[in-house]
């Protein structure tokens, strides 16, 4: 095992060296670092060219320049000695990287997590309903988004998600056409999700259409979009729904202790919603994290106290329910700050560029909303285009597992379908996904070049592209180094994780 890891690391180092040389050469031949001066009629043109030549060592051939760069880069193994050169503007590349990495993580982490959760969930569901209308619809939609170019999706999202939505907020009157359209969509989607006999589908379509249109009409007349909120009733009802759903998935509804424990946490959350209101006025990020942990703790405790024949199931279900309902309470609190935020942004809350409104200086809730309104469009764009691959992988993997002998055996010995799916099939279906997910996490730092550009995020992708267009090799090499190292590391981790998860695979020393 140890020698295997060492060998892999050694090979990776050679790969990195070779690749960095190749990238450096490609950057060097990709254009003319002096292009910006060539067309100038400035009297001091020769002097400017000489300065640039000296700065970038253009008087020596590119392969030699690579070794000058490498000489600084190898010092990075000594802490505090790292020298990756400077950008043309004179900023050290290490500093540029240290601000680009958080910016990229901010943009890409949420999107990747959502894409994984949604993609896997949808993949599993479509596998369980193979060749149903739902399966075909999801496949079609997933591939449709997968094949759309992100810059185009971004333009559409900005036009409809930001510009038109903000225009709508200025005059929040929902037209009859919009209400009818939502009713029709709702009438089409719900039967697809719920399934059943044709008669049942018909009834579902009618009711769902009427309810969808009604809800939208009500939201319009109550100016909900200007003054949104959940209120205790909606928190209680949604919370109860969550409690039932989570219990059904994790423990089965026949496990009454688990169900009661989960429902208890909903009641606790409602009490906390009012009891903690004064404290939440001065909220900080750490307080919220702490409260989130407290919510999980309270849920686990409730599950423990209710006990029953399988305490662990109750604790799990109640803990998760508690966490999710606490999230609802948090959402409601954020919504209460929405009107103030709308005023602070001159009535146009959803942003199309950047990661924050300059000089907002709001409290935790306002700046939290600001963070959200800036991330919602780029995250949506990234999720739409990346969710397809996850649904495909997890669907295929789930289908394969469901056909295995041990699943048939589990059914034969009388286990409920819930236990067969969640315990026997789902866990094993996730094993191949570990590899894909590890790769994608490794690529997180690479940033999303086009997305960063169209949404004006200044992350790794922007650093790379700006460096390339200005013929500035140092930032390009800096980003390459970080991305290369994470890719190599996570590939190795993926292989090791695979052997840890699947006893049939063993790492040979």
């Amino acid at each position, binding site marked *: 095992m140890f020698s295997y890891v060492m060998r892999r690391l050694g090979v990776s180092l050679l790969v990195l060296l070779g690749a960095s040389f190749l990238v450096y050469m490609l950057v060097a031949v990709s254009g003319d670092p002096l292009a910006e001066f060539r067309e100038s009629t400035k009297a001091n043109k020769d002097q400017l060219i000489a300065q640039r030549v000296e700065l970038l060592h253009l008087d020596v051939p590119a392969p030699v320049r690579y070794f000058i760069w490498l000489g600084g880069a190898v010092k990075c193994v000594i802490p505090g000695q790292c020298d990756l050169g400077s950008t043309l503007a004179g900023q050290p590349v290490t500093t540029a990287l240290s601000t680009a990495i958080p910016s990229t993580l901010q943009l890409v982490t949420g999107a990747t997590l959502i894409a994984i959760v949604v993609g896997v969930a949808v993949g599993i569901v479509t596998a369980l309903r193979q060749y149903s209308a739902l399966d075909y619809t999801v496949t079609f939609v997933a591939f449709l988004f997968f094949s759309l170019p992100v810059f185009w999706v971004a333009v559409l999202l900005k036009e409809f998600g930001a510009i038109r939505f903000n225009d709508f907020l200025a005059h929040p009157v929902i037209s009859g056409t919009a209400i009818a359209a939502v009713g029709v969509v709702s009438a089409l989607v719900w039967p697809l999700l719920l399934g059943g006999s044709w008669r049942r589908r018909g009834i*579902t379509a009618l009711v769902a259409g009427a309810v969808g249109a009604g809800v939208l009409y009500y939201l319009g007349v109550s100016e909900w979009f200007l*003054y949104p909120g959940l209120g205790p009733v909606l928190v209680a009802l949604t919370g109860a729904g969550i409690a039932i759903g989570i219990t059904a998935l994790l423990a089965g509804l026949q496990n009454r202790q688990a169900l009661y424990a989960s429902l208890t946490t909903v009641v606790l959350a409602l009490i906390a919603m009012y009891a903690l209101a004064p404290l939440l006025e001065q909220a900080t990020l750490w307080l919220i994290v702490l409260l989130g942990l407290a919510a999980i703790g309270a849920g686990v405790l409730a599950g423990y106290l209710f006990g029953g024949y399988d305490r662990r199931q109750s604790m799990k279900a109640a803990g998760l329910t508690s966490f999710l309902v606490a999230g609802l309470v948090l959402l409601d609190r954020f919504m209460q700050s929405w009107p103030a935020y709308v005023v602070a942004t001159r009535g146009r809350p959803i942003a199309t560029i950047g990661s924050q409104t300059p000089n907002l200086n709001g409290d935790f809730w306002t700046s939290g909303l600001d963070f959200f309104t800036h991330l919602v469009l780029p995250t949506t764009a990234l999720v739409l285009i990346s969710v397809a691959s996850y649904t495909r992988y997890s669907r295929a993997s789930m289908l394969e597992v469901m056909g295995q002998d041990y699943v048939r055996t589990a059914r034969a010995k009388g286990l409920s379908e819930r236990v067969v799916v969640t315990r026997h099939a789902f866990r094993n279906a996730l094993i191949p996904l570990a590899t894909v997910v590890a790769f994608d996490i490794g690529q997180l730092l690479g940033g999303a070049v086009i997305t960063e550009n169209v949404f004006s995020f200044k992350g790794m992708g922007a650093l790379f592209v700006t460096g390339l267009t200005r013929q500035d090799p140092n930032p390009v090499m800096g980003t390459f180094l970080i991305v290369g190292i994470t890719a190599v590391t996570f590939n190795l981790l993926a292989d090791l994780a695979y052997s840890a998860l699947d006893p049939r695979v063993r790492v040979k020393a």
Partner: protein
Amino acid sequence: MKIRRIGAGLAVLAAGTLVLSACSNKPAASPTTSAAATGGTVTVAETNSFSSFNPNTSNGNTDINSKVISYPTRSWFNYTDGSSFAAGNPKVIKDTSFGTYKVDSEDPLVVTYTVNDGVKWSDGEPVDANDLVFSWAVDSGHYNSKDGKVTYFDYAGDTGTLGLTSFPKIGDDGRSITLTYSKPAADWEIALSAEEPAHIVAKNSGLADAKALTDLLKSLADSAPTATAADPKLEAVATFWNTGYDSTTLPSNPDLYVSSGPYIVSNVVENQSVTLVPNKAYVGDNKPKLDSIIMRTIPDSTAAVQALKNGEVDVISPQADADTLTALKAVSNATLHQGDQLAYDHVDLTFNNGGPFDAKTYGGDEAKALKVRQAFLKTIPRQAILDAIVTPLKSDAAVLNSQLFVPAQAAYTDSAKANGSDKYPAEPDVAGAKALLAEAGVTSPTVRILYNIKNPNRVNAYTLIAKSATDAGFTVVDNGDAAWGKRLGDGSYDASIFGWINPGIGVSGVPQIFSSTGGGNYNGYSNPKVDALTSQLIVTLDPAKQVDIEKQIDPFPFADAYGLPLFQSVGIDAVSDRVAGIDVYNPNQAGVWWNVWQWSVKG
């Protein structure tokens, strides 16, 4: 996984309608509109990110640094009038509320600069002769040794003009300096420009005060041009000036953003935005009207247009292309300004590479070479090129008919009539070209054309020229190259298509291109009459006489079949209707920022 029961699902949906009655946070009474009317905020989108508080070093010399620092936070004796380009008369405006300058004598040229009493930096220190001396020290390049062994200030501007002066005489009032030129310099009025405050540079490089810096500069003034080793004290000053101001965030040292202009930097979010607020110590006439100005970095044109549409930014200056223009025209709440850039595309023929346009090829027969050059130029379909590239952006665009003037200048119309450009009409004259080739007795000469293969406009121009020239009997060889810039002047091509960027104000660019020894003379053009005129031009002080000389130079490139100007590029900006004070497109480096103090928010 039949977990969902249809009934449960429907029940939840039905319950939802009842529940919603309690879920809106609408306040009982609408909030009272607070706060008195204020100056408001204007947000400007720019392409690049802010990187330095000193826009005059070669590191910091990007458009964005000078937009944010030079215009809002530096007062000076004069500034370029950004609206004068559209008015046809590029000029500088004097700001007499900062100070005055006058020519004491024309031969020798002596200029005295005097800062008004009471003009202050934002930290309360007066702006005085020490600041002017430091500006001179940087802008003149005086302290760099002649042999290049010692260099101090890494100045990105042109030191040629102030390089003709010696250490200034400091006035008795301590607010004025007098510069004496060793010979007349045409661009004297724009040579001295605002630099960083002397007292800050002194303090941060280990000197006692601004006076100590002036004394140091004075003591080294005579020895510097021949020095062989750097003076450690001045080197500390230069190092601070060169790199101390580079910062992508708001520095913890407030010295670095001290301002003498109407605004001062108050916040910088790395790579994203810079905020300017009014400078309370400002006493001049260009009083700020806004509460704050925010510069936001948006590299992508489409993103900038959508941000304007969404009200996140109020002013954008994107790259002009047909798609951006269409998108901008659809934005209802903004005004679009279109204008000509200072950049123009042109075709140059190579005179000195033994190719078809070089007299040497014909045994020194200049007349024969001239006929071949004229024949080639006659085939260039300038109207077709214009229609393909510029007309979609600007419907009234016209072919450029002068190498020295652009239509924005008043002298253009006269000069274009008289400079012989009518010999090369916008429509190609293939028959005329064939006749000239026959007269010269040259059959199907081979012409290698160099252009930037990555620039679609140049590719378009090449394609049209190549077709027309082939019709006239030339053999055209495609020398399109991504690394075209490296090949300029190496003789490996016979004709080139690229662009010049005219600085707008000043005449020192003219000898760069047309004199035999100019740094931008890539095609070996040499005409003693032009050399004489250009050297006369740069020592002429009277702007009217400068124009006269330029008019005399203008016919030579056409008579010698130097090449042809093609067209001026189109520039655009768009301004939200809530902003007042930005009325015309400004083609120079300042962009919309040149009159930042006149911006205001309507209503």
